[in-house]
């Protein structure tokens, strides 16, 4: 689980081109959107594609976005709950 969270941080930074951030700067429970890291609705769509490409998880309803992408922890939980088959390597 910790591995997944660390990996997610790297992927989020890379995907969203957050050049000023290092994985260590993002807290597991820090809100990713507005008041936290400051992501917006376009980022949410990018994260949906990230889930699809990297974890083979399809989030078909954009309205689930805010809940799933609230923080690194909620993302990791969602991935774990939805992908028994995915092997998370370090």
């Amino acid at each position: 689980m910790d591995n997944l969270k660390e990996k997610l941080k790297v992927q989020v930074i890379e995907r969203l081109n957050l050049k000023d951030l290092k994985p260590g700067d993002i807290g597991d429970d820090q809100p990713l959107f507005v008041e936290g890291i400051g992501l917006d609705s376009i980022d949410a769509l990018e994260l949906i594609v990230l889930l699809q490409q990297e974890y083979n998880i399809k989030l078909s309803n954009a309205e689930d976005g805010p809940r799933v992408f609230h923080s690194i922890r909620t993302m990791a939980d969602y991935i774990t709950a939805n992908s028994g088959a995915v092997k998370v390597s370090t």
Partner: protein
Amino acid sequence: MNVPSFVAGMGIVSAIGSDLRTNLDSLCEKRAGIGTMHWLSSARHRALPVGEVKLSNAELAAITGLSARVPRTALLSCMAAKETLINAGWEKENTLRTGFISANTVGGMDKTENFFKLFSKNTAAGKLADVVHHECGSVTELVADFLGIQHFVSTVSTACSSSANSIFTGARMIRAGMLDYALVGGADALTKFTLNGFNTLMILDKELCKPFDENRQGLNLGEGAAYLLLSSEKGLKQLHKNPVACITGYANANDAFHQTASSPEGTGSFLAMKGAMDKAGLQAKDIDYINLHGTGTQNNDIAEGTAINILFDSGFPKMSSTKAYTGHTLGASGAVEAVFSVLTIQHGIIFPNLRLETPMKEFSFRPVTELLRNQRIQNVLSNSFGFGGNCSSLIFSAA
């Protein structure tokens, strides 16, 4: 100088008809044009409903006289532009100053897609004939050359508000005495590029769209072209024509909130509508009908509705979105809806907002859901809002 701009003629091709008459009939008979993809060849999104023009490129070429190899947007543009000039009685021999100000969002992208299939693997491959009209301006010039208009040629591109802006660029030039006639409007063909682009935004309804409905799920894309021939008073005399309507107000504002999303309070929409009314010297009570931008997305309809709620709280005019008929025709939508707005004035008819079942709970107003005839319509407000916060409103008034 302050010369009014009259509407001397109109032309349109859309999912609900390939000329003005058919569009009017479809609007009156509640006949929508959105359905299964036929001309667009998207491998992965065949299930998405779209508002296609029911003519192939070959058919469009045969009707217009342009080559079938030019971008579909140029074919659609030519079709509607020709009808407009005929409708207005304008001929090539007319010696007054005529400008062509068109709009589109992706130029010759349909052909560029073909080119890129090969080019992306090998930069020496792909037919150059497929990219030669990639530029938005090139599509306009194909049609300008065909029509023989060269005094002034221009293209506007502000996403979904593009052709509203081209319309008032023309009105402004006539007002300033720089042109006698301005053929204004816009065109956009469906492309895989735009379909896939809107799909990534997750705002395409998998069913037929329901603008301003509580349960709306997004928009349907459409295609088409529409133009108006704006004329000065001097120009009208030469055409021996009574004007159909005139443009009395126009305004452009920027929402400056987000690259794609509208602000929840509808700042840009509010400023555009208010600006157009101020320009026309009209107050809320003077507006008889609003042709809504009404795309059917959660975001647009709430923003536009909120702005209307504030601006017209003293009494709501009749209103409807006609995008449930045509789909969202992007660069053409401002012009398509300008033509519908003028038809409203001309025929005293208000077109219904199709498929509206449950009005949005946020608002006390409710768009018109049945065709209304014998209306006295003096002033119509037409809204076009787009990506990049570009919001424009036009007001047409009975001449």
